């Protein structure tokens, strides 16, 4: 069974969440250039962790529950990571599309015979 948490803890966490909401709203109004997004996402991440750890009792849960709670996020990170490692690096090799086009136009002679 989940442990009984004092009322005060929940109220404090809620207050911190509301302060973080105010913070993220005010910071968004300040021009930080490329830093606006990382700041907003960091605050969102902190809010998420507070909800998961305190409201969802993961802080006092057993290892199995923690593992299951983390699993979805781990696979999400893998999906985002693999996808963006493609999209973010496409322009690092400027001539790749030209190279690919050339390869597609001129297949090696006799390729079909050797491979099939």
């Amino acid at each position, binding site marked *: 069974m989940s442990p009984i948490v004092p009322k005060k803890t929940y109220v404090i966490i809620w207050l911190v969440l509301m302060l973080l909401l105010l913070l993220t*709203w005010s910071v968004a109004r300040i021009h930080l250039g490329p830093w606006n997004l990382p700041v907003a996402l960091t605050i969102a991440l902190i809010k998420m962790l507070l909800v998961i750890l305190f409201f969802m009792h993961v802080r006092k*849960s057993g290892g199995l529950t923690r593992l*299951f709670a983390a699993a979805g996020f781990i696979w999400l990170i893998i999906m985002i990571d693999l996808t963006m490692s493609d999209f973010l690096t496409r322009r690092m090799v400027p001539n790749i599309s030209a190279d690919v086009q050339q390869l597609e136009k001129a297949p090696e002679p006799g390729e079909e015979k050797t491979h099939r």
Partner: protein
Amino acid sequence: MSEPRHIRRRRLPSPGGEGKGEGGRNPVAPLAEQFEDMTQQHESATLGMWTFLATEVLFFGGMFMGYIVYRHAYPRAFAEASRHTIVLFGTINTAILLTSSLTMALGVRAAQLNLRKSLVAWLALTVLLGLAFLGVKGLEYQQDLREHLWPGPHFNPALGPQSQIFWFLYWAMTGLHALHVTVGVVVIGIMTFLARAGRFSNYYHTPIEVTGLYWHFVDIVWIFLYPLLYLVNRA
């Protein structure tokens, strides 16, 4: 009342004769046959909900992935498009959902402490906050539609065609989220009635806890939707 064969029902020692006096029946706690005891049953249910939530993370994750790819491809269109979201409504709704998470957590606590009246009160308050969220969202949707922000042939001509991708994601993500809030409101509503009927106690309140986990997850999705949809370009 006929009971399913596979469920053993155990009568609880009713604290202070509460069962007969108020509801006319003793609170009963079903322990399904496959479990050793209530703790094991409770842990299995919790683990099941976390498993479901993992699939939900990836369900919403697909949309977040789409958002990341297109925001990376068209950063200026996204910045321009997101200025048309109504940040005040978004902020109010974030506050409402965060507060509803507090009331839900306090409801679970009331169930753990066998405080039936405050359990019903906290659950009812959570339902009201969920409905308030949906109400604000409805007002916001109305205004979005009036500004022709629904992607398609009648899309706001002041915005570029790539902005339609942002607005497609806006409707899909907030729509799916609102659907989850609706499901949550219905389930918590049912729990409120069951709690009023005295179906839960400090001995058996797994459904309340599991519903709480779902509700907090819905809150978490919104915690990320808020900065990504409303706060892209507000400086």
